[in-house]
């Protein structure tokens, strides 16, 4: 049985998606402020881990990682997680992924909401 990650195209799909996704995030004034003091190259490699996780792929993401990475971002709330999921969906749509798979990816991304928001 093929996994969602394999169906999406594996590491190649992550590489294709990461730039489009991160560009959308940086260009969006509602969330771009969170990236003001981050190194772009480091961020891109972190976004790759995030996308791998959201695509259901092999990853070393743990709740602790997510909590640590986001705990110093003051003002981060549910609306920002919604925006991430929105851009994730739009990125996949641009890459020609069908709606059923986008829904699955969104559900995985949504499953770490509480860790990201440290609650």
């Amino acid at each position, binding site marked *: 049985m093929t996994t969602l990650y394999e169906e999406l195209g594996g590491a190649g799909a992550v590489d294709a998606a990461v730039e489009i996704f*991160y*560009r959308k995030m940086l*260009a969006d004034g509602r969330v771009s402020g969170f*990236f003001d003091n981050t190194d*772009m190259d480091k961020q*891109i490699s972190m976004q790759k881990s995030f996308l791998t996780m959201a695509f259901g792929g092999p990853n070393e993401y743990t709740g602790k990682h997510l909590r640590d990475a986001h705990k110093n971002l003051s003002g981060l709330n549910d609306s920002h997680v919604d925006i991430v999921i929105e851009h994730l969906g739009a990125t996949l749509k641009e890459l020609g992924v069908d709606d059923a798979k986008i829904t699955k990816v969104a559900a995985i991304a949504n499953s770490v909401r509480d860790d990201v928001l440290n609650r």
Partner: protein
Amino acid sequence: MTANIFFQGESYSLQDGETVLECLLRNGKDVSYSCKNGVCQSCLMHSTQGEPTKESQLRLKDSLKAQNFFLACQCRPNQDMGIETLNVEKEFTKGIIYDKEMLCHNVVAIHIKPLADIEARPGQYINLMVEGVVRSYSIANLSNKDGVITLHIRKIANGIVSSWAHDKAKTGDSVLLRGGMGDCFYLGTNNENSFPILLAGTGTGLAPLEAIVLDALDHGHKGKIHIIHGGLKPSDLYHMEKLQSLADSYENLSYTPCVLNKENSVIDIYEGSLDAIVNSAVSTADKINLRAYFCGAPEMVNLLKKNTFIAGVSSKHIFSDPFLQKHT
């Protein structure tokens, strides 16, 4: 779980999440470091016992990895490690100062003749050790052809190496070098040399950019090359005549000096912010193929990288001088 490090006959326990460098500094050890970001390699150390972590070797050459060298600022060991500082004699190459010249009110060029080959591409950076302190500087010339390495060193109050360069260094003095490092260099080949190149920087960020331009021209690069040098005021800029005359001799090269404030200068300099000029240059460029190089003040470099990426240039094609140095 706590790991211990053994250094110079003593044992030190690491606190939770602490790097080897943080632990040594907390214990008052005088070890070399600079950027603390895993980039400059000033804190390169050697492991005599225990494998260095993957993160601490990420950006090292394979030959260094194989010999258990690692970056102390990136190493959070989960097992005990025996470590030592570099053997200066073995890891550094001696060089002799060949010449020294002031480039503008706060920048001096030091020309160094290495006494053995240093494997480095123009635009890459090297470690310079002076008075026991290591700092990173970018190569500003065609070092592989000239047989001399030129560095541009900005005057920084209380900077050990900077003060040495400005006040003490003289022709005939010897220094220690190690390099080259980083991915800020020309990447064209005989088959692929028609992509456009945009280079922008502030202050001594010009050094690697100038080297990359010279290297691209030397390789017969066919695509357009645009170099932009920014400063606060006209006296911050240097090599204006050199770059202008180079631009006059090569049809595909253009040069834009720019300052925030012209201060009644009559010279032909663009007045405005560097990021605005870069944004406009990127907007008309072939974004799929453009290679962008940004060097200099970290806030500006980060802004230029971000804007260029948002405009549609792939992050793989954006190169930068990675120093986040606050002291030099």
